[in-house]
Structure formats: structure tokens, C-alpha cells
């Protein structure tokens, strides 16, 4: 299942991990782990959700590219082909 990969999709997924966060003020280049207080478990759940939502396989070595909204959109869009 592939949805349109954009910021709102990413925020939707993040919303299930950090339900109390205000995504309207989240900057595109902010480190998500800092901004949303995500620990390694949260981040892994985020990656898993991205994988399940987009069907894209994400090797561990690429995790750092997903640390910002812009980075995540860029990476996933490129991988979607």
C-alpha cells in the first residue's frame, strides 16, 4: 500500500507515537527525536510504521536519514521510485 509520501503522512504516523505533540509547529529540519522526545524504541516503531505504510524496506544504516521531516520525505520518495 503506498500513500502519497508527504509531511502530513509522516506526521500522521508520528501522531500515533507521540499523540500529545503539536505537529503544526514542527519544522522540516528539526531533529524529530529531540523535538518529540523519541527514544530508540519510539524511533524504531516510527521506522516500522513507515515501512508498513509505504512498503519500502529501510536498512538500519539509513536510519539517520529519517531524523527530520524533510529528510524522511526525501528518502522515502526517492526509494519509492
Amino acid at each position: 500500500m503506498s500513500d502519497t509520501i508527504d509531511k502530513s503522512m509522516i506526521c500522521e504516523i508520528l501522531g500515533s507515537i507521540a499523540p500529545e505533540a503539536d505537529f503544526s509547529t514542527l519544522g522540516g529540519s528539526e531533529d524529530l527525536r529531540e523535538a518529540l522526545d523519541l527514544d530508540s524504541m519510539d524511533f524504531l516503531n516510527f521506522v516500522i510504521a513507515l515501512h508498513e505504510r509505504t512498503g519500502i524496506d529501510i536498512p538500519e544504516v539509513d536510519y539517520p536519514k529519517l531524523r527530520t521531516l524533510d529528510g524522511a520525505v526525501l528518502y522515502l520518495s526517492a526509494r519509492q521510485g
Partner: protein
Amino acid sequence: MPALGADMEAGTLVEWLVKPGDRVKRGDIVAVVETQKGAIEIEIFNEGIVSELVVPIGAKVPVGSLIARIGDTGVAPPAVLQAAKPAPSAPISSPPKRIVPPQPAVIAPVGAMKISPAARRRAAELHIDATTLRGTGVDGAVTVADVEAAAAAVAIAAAPSPRKAFDPAEMRKAIAAAMGRSKREIPHYYLTHPIDLSLALSWLERFNAAQPVSSRLLPAVLLLKAAALALREVPQLNGTYADGVFQAGAGIHVGWAISLRGGGLVAPAILDTDQRSLPELMSQMRDLVQRARAGGLRSSELASPTVTVTSLGDRGAETVMGIIYPPQVALIGFGMIGARPWVVENRVEPRPAVTVSLAADHRASDGHIGALLLSAIERLLQEPEKL
């Protein structure tokens, strides 16, 4: 009402998941109780048939109060025809002194259950079998109130109300009480030790590369497993201390510290941590985190930890010097995993490392024992494939 933590005094019954007449077996979840630490699912450890839900939804009762009755035989079946017991026939040889007439067939009277007319009518309206209820009316008759209470219990069970997320203020109070008590009563001693994780992390990288995203492991799993296995070698640190006596844990059930969004901390147990494979532990940890945040932890998880492990993950501080959660005797802490200068054969090079710390109850163990644990953890983490 079970004790779901050392300092719990009372709990509020918010949901019944069974109703009178249901058969339950060991491990079934029967109710949800609201505590300072959020909503906890209560498991039952008996088998039988639920005969009575004693406490209504919303009632706050002290730990130890009766909340339900589980019977062996449960519901009496209607109108049981019992076979007549034949009188023992006199042996033919001896002269019959007296003929004992056979006992007449005993039929349990169909109308033995007392149900008031109004209750019968209400039960029919609500599709409740009034004959399964225990009556509180005159002469033990089932009343309208009894029927309506049963219907309410069924309704709640059928349509569970959304569970309240934990109340941070209450959680804070609970933590304050437990930690305050711990520092007052437990003479803590502290040991720390740095551990080279290069072997562990490179093994992990290779393992994860071959796994789909959802099966990958976090470094914390390795740390947890190492701690659990180390406790097999040093059982003096796995158990509880009460009334001047240390009681070794029957198994190694590590309470995994989970911080909750919005502030708060719970440490539900992973039963038999030392016996679980790494993937098993990983999925257990994920499940616990999800349920801790959504309010679905189980009573057995909160009541049974024999030791607690806390890990700061990859952000935070180098070392964690924790406070033991009573009545346990140890808290194992893992600081941030990060690159450190490491001495290797007279050279200094960067190695990924973690500082493990032990907070231990000096009444139950001494520094020597504590040091044995930490060096065991270090050793185990050098052979990650064996974890």
C-alpha cells in the same frame, strides 16, 4: 483486589470482563483496575465459574478486599432428576428383619430459586437469566436491583469504556511514595563499570541487516538479556527483602523500566527474562511499551518483578544511579551508548561503550557480590551470539 505495587493501598474497579456464569481459567483477564499507575488488567489464578461480581463498577476498594467469587460448580442446573438410591438388598440367606423401602426419586424443586415478580419481568426485558444470580432481597430472593446490576456488568463487559490514560499527578504521587520509602528504608550501595560494546554492536548490525524492519533488535535487548543471564550467576541480587529476610526470586522476572510520555514511570515484569530469545524479548518489550502507554498492563506484570533494569538508550546521560524499587534488592542501570576512548594494548582508540551501574540493598548483599554481577554482564556482552 490485588496489590499491584509495594505502595498500593486501594484500587478502583473500572471494568468487569467476565460475568456470572462464565468459565475462567488461570491467566484469564477478568477485570480492569484503575491505580495511580494507570489502568491495569487483572488476571485470575484460579479455575472455575464466576458466581458473583461483588464489587460494582466504579467502586474503590482497599487492597485485599473481596471483588469476585469463583465457584467450583457454578450454576445449579435446573430440575436435576437424581436416580433413586436402591436400598441395599438383604442377603438371601439371612431372614429379612425389616424391609427398607427405596428412597423416592429426589427432584430438585424447579421453583427453588426465589425471584420477585418484578425481577422476573425485568430479567426478561434485559435478557438476563435471573436463575444464575444471587439474590439480595427478602429470603434471598433475586430483586430488580440484582437483575439490573447483572445487566450493567454484562453491558460494561460487552462495551468496554475507553480506558483512562494514567493521571500524571497520581503517577507522580505513586513514584514519590515508592522512591521516598526506598531511600528511607534501603541502605543503597552503588557500583559502576564501563563495558566495551563493539563486539555486541557489530553482531547486532549484522543480525539486523538480515531482518525486515519489524524484526530488528535494539541494543537494549542485548543489555537486558545479559543482565538476566548474569543474575543466574549471582542469584543474591534477584529477589525481595522483607522482614529482615532475603527471598530469592523463583525465576528471573526483570522489571523493565518504561518512561511514559507526559511524565511517569512503570516497570512491568518480563517473566523468565533469562529464558527468552532475543527476538522474543524484543517483541515483549515493544508490547509492554505499547500497553504501558495505553493502560493495558496486567496485574501479574506489576506484581512479580524480581529485579529492575533501566536503560537510558541512546540519549541522556553516561551513567544512571537509580533507586531500588522496594521490595526488590537491586536496580541495574545502563547509561547512554556512545563512543568513548578505550585503551587497547597500550593504544587509545574510540570504542562504543556503555556504563552499567548497580544500585543494591546492602542488607542483602555486599559490594563483592555486586561486582561479580557487573563483571558477568560485561563478559556476557562480549559474546553476543550466545545471548
